[in-house]
């Protein structure tokens, strides 16, 4: 794919991924066929900041986990008052990384 296009994608979407993944994404995108550009550029990615806000406001109901697609863990948090409140606090710090991982998983199905 065109390097300029890839750089544009990286620049506008860098905050959705872990920093150590960016290089891999760039290399894979450049090696990728041009026909996949339409799909790649329209992938719905979750904003880590939004999930952090939701985690702080409604974390003990597990809604942050439901939002990023970890339904099972979300149910676990909901049933236990956010893991006795401890897990909810741990998730304030974990949820951004978890969201970025989920975004990477979503993009990966197009990359490989």
């Amino acid at each position, binding site marked *: 794919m065109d390097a300029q296009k890839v750089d544009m994608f990286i620049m506008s979407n860098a905050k959705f991924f872990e920093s150590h993944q960016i290089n891999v994404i760039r290399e894979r995108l450049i090696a990728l066929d041009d026909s996949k550009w339409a799909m790649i550029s329209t992938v719905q990615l979750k904003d880590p900041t939004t999930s952090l806000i939701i985690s702080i406001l409604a974390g003990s*109901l597990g809604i942050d986990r439901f939002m990023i697609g970890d*339904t*099972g863990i979300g149910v676990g948090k909901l*049933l*236990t*008052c*956010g893991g006795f409140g401890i897990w909810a606090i741990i998730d304030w710090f974990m949820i951004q990384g978890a969201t970025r*991982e989920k975004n990477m*998983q979503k993009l990966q199905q197009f990359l490989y």
Partner: protein
Amino acid sequence: MTLNRNKLYSILFISCITGYIWLYFSLSNIENNREAFDVCLIKHITNIPCPSCGSTRSIVSLTNGNFNEALLINPVGLIVAAIMSLAPLWIFIDIVTRRKTLFDFFQKIETYLKRPQYSIPLILLVIINWIWNITKGL
């Protein structure tokens, strides 16, 4: 964090152990007539019970054999009790036979729960239960 078999099993196992320790702690608290204390963040901050507040009391009354009372305090307690009693057994069997039936079951349930025709009624049920909790004043 990609969830795999061993990660899920350790999370479940640790939660169950914590649950049992918490249950023992609350049971001994009740025996000595000490005041039970809440761990729920929402209840501490807003003074409104959360959807799963009262599940400890529900399980405690279940251990005394009062099924109806447990249901009336909070039906969520019954679900938690079922998970707490089933999960360690299932994990043990899976580890001994080196299979991953619980992990497959978990993933299947997850895909079902993501479908709106299942998730919307369940969300409504949780909200109804929450309203009931608030009116009961747990």
